[in-house]
């Protein structure tokens, strides 16, 4: 594992873990595993050239999982005082006594080998505090200088960085550590003309401050905010739809749970029993690549300690595999795909993709528009937590974008909904663009022409 020498897990924590595993054994827990996650983060949001909100934080916690009579109990804490080990052990014992899950559970002993991956920034924190503050101030200044209609920015504009450490230590010899850096910049220009207001968000993620393209993100966001000032609803009806890369990333993120074997086994995904079958157009390949260079979720082992590897979840339209952790793999008689994931240190082990994206095709967005001829490009989707249902696949989402007429970008459109079904949409995909981006972290996409969908407008 790459471990940078200037940040390390406090020795006191190693001592606590040793004490805890001993207490677990003494308390009658047959096998135990301590999972610790710590995050150091820094935020600097600016307003009028000064830092308006500044945050510097350090927090984390530890979860204990333990096997008692074939059942897995779990308890967690953020306090590491004298009572903590005792509370964790008694919590695991009570939890295990309640569990009735018939599926076999077990703790992992370790994979034969783990990939060497670079997940750290070139400089600690991705840059110094002063550099980050200067970047945030320069970004604000730039965004406010580009167009006379943009005189204000939205709620948070600035830089945020995180350094995360994960440690897994098991009574059966598992002993793993990983670290990762992430940094992001955000700018939210607000364009106003009379009573009309329109905003857009520029967001970029990287590991080092020097890799965040200030000029590009500010220009794109300002241009979009100003352009959308003239937007209005289009007529209701059926339209050929291109989801721009960022909107498509949102849609994929919203429905990524359908590729979880856990959801499938529980009857919560319509992909249950579909491995090997055609579920998408032949041009569709969907990858989960935990080894992707620079990926937000690049990692050599998952949250059960299983070594990760790249895989085609959809391969030329065929469902290649669902994503598995140890428990779901055992149930389906396959091997874990290294996709065990805990939403936080305290969360139960579930399943999630790592760096998850549609394989890009050859056309850029302009070329896709040319092929579509008449239709709509959707550039922004809102309310996905409410207007999309991954159990049914149905979505009906507030959208923004622009009309495509004669193969070219025409007038801006807002206050419309685009409705469809994710599973039907996968089968109808007409073309995949070349412009792959990862706007929000691990899940990304190029622009995709998905065929005709229903639009509610005026």
């Amino acid at each position: 594992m790459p471990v940078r020498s200037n940040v390390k897990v406090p020795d006191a924590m190693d001592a606590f873990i040793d004490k805890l595993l001993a207490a677990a054994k003494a308390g009658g827990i047959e096998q135990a595993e301590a999972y610790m996650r710590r995050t150091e983060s820094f935020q600097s949001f600016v307003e009028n050239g000064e830092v308006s909100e500044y945050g510097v934080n350090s927090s984390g916690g530890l979860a204990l999982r333990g096997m008692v009579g074939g059942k897995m109990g779990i308890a967690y804490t953020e306090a590491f005082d004298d009572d903590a080990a005792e509370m964790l052990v008694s919590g695991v014992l009570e939890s295990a006594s309640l569990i009735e899950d018939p599926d076999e559970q077990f703790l992992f002993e370790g994979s034969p080998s783990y990939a060497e991956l670079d997940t750290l920034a070139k400089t600690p924190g991705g840059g110094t505090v002063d550099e980050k503050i200067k970047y945030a101030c320069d970004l604000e200044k730039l965004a406010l200088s580009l167009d006379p209609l943009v005189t204000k920015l939205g709620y948070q504009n600035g830089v945020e960085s995180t350094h995360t450490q994960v440690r897994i230590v098991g009574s059966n010899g598992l002993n793993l550590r990983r670290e990762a850096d992430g940094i992001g910049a955000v700018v939210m220009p607000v364009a106003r003309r009379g009573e009309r207001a329109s905003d857009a968000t520029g967001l970029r993620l990287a590991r080092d401050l020097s890799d965040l393209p200030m000029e590009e993100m500010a220009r794109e966001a300002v241009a979009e905010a100003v352009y959308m000032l003239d937007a209005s609803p289009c007529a209701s009806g059926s339209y050929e739809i291109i989801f721009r890369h960022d909107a498509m990333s949102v849609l994929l993120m919203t429905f990524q749970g359908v590729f979880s074997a856990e959801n499938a086994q529980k009857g919560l995904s319509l992909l249950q029993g579909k491995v090997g079958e055609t579920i998408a157009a032949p041009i569709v390949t969907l990858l989960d690549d935990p080894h992707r260079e620079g990926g937000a979720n690049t990692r050599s082992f998952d949250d059960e300690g299983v070594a990760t590897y790249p895989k085609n979840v959809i391969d030329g339209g065929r469902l290649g595999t669902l994503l598995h952790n140890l428990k779901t793999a055992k149930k389906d008689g396959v091997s874990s795909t290294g996709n065990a994931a805990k939403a936080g240190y305290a969360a139960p082990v579930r399943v999630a993709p790592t760096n998850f994206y549609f394989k890009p095709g050859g056309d850029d967005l302009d070329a896709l528009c040319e092929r579509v001829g008449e239709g709509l490009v959707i550039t922004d989707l809102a309310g996905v937590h409410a207007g999309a249902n991954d159990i049914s696949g149905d979505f009906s989402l507030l959208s923004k974008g622009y009309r495509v007429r004669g193969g070219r970008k025409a007038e801006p459109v807002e206050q419309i909904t685009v409705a469809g079904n994710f599973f039907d949409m996968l089968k109808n995909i007409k073309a995949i663009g070349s412009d792959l981006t990862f706007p929000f972290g691990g899940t990304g996409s190029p622009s995709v022409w998905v065929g005709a969908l229903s639009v509610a407008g005026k």
Partner: protein
Amino acid sequence: MVKRQLAERALMKALSTSGDFAELFFEDRLNNSITLQGGKVEVANTGRLHGVGVRVFKGTRSVYAYTNDFEEAGLLACAAQAASALKESERTGAPVIRLIGSVAANLHPVERLPGDVAGAWRVDRLRAADAVMKSVSSEITQTICRYADSDQRVVIANSDGLFIGDRRVYTRVTLSAVASDGTENQSGVSSPGAMGGAEFVERLDVEAHARKAANMAATMLHARQCPAGVSPVVIDGGFGGVIFHEACGHSLEATSVARGLSEFSGRIGQKIASDIVTAIDDGTMPGEWGSINIDDEGTPTNRLVLIENGVLRGYMIDRLNARRMGNASVTGSSRREGYTYAPTSRMRNTFIAPGSDDNDEMIRTMGDGLYAKTMGGGSVNPTTGEFNFAVMEGYLVKDGRIAEPVRGASLIGRGSEILLKIDRVGREMTMAQGVCGSVSGSVPTNVGQPMIRVSSLTVGGR
């Protein structure tokens, strides 16, 4: 949980540079969660969250730092780190701070604390719900029942001398059902909650909530797609109140008002809604899910009139944004998920007050449109006022009569427009529980309203 003398030292450390106000938020929280999947206990866990947040102001600038470490060295280091962000002008001689201890008056007495209830008791309640859901229809193919409670103890101290303790106990049951015919799935949910302990679940009609969730899933499985278009919409009470929460509530939070970003900035005293609309944000309602004793800055909570007969009366204002708004008064509604978030103005129990219209009449006279019986969640962009929300259970209305169920509907619009288009407000206000996510994390909030009618709204569907 923390000694007063230590808090005094930490506040003085936090003000050792040029800050003019400092605040500490100590949190120690026990969480329990049990989930039954298909009738079997799948998750049972307990845990303890523990940390402290240090906030320092200088004018309208704010610094926030947090740590898990309550010990003297860790806390003082965290305070020093916050202070160092304002290092450009060193203070000569730190202020002397003397804290006066108090305990928040408890408006929401708890009879059975989470720690007094066995896990097996919780499981039994969930099992009863599970059985009811499965009995509703053979098409119910999956059930998820969750019982979650938490016992949060906080101490809030600030450089004005405040040192106040509070305890917040929350209990919630979430019942979800999935109906399937093999090729299609539909879901239904009901998730009642309270600021209170296990007595809430003892008195709760768990079976009625289970039936509601299962019926919703089974009904929607046989519903056709909602057609897209613009039409009148009747929105039922309870979770229907999410319409006000999204379309207007967020835009009345100082978070967006103070910077002039909200469409309702600078409009106090102006008519922003139809005359029949009065809207309240009330933290004092006994035992309600969105209630509090004191807010997360230590200010006693209150009842705030947001809109009175269509006229904008008030905003939700926290300490930092009060400064940005020319020393406006705070409203006791500054909230945060926990110590990892700086607090800001948020909603509590937010509802449209009862009106004088008849429910049957508003449907009978609407012509063709949509009856939204159960709403899902939604979201809003406070800068533009554009909102959206999902209809979980909807019915077409044809010629003033409720006709067949429809699925997949969503409602969109602008807050400033929809408030003026409310043309009926019913007489009986009911509330429902939600978890509201925003800049200071996820906090429990109630939404509520009587049945209302909106004369015209864009309905998304296909």
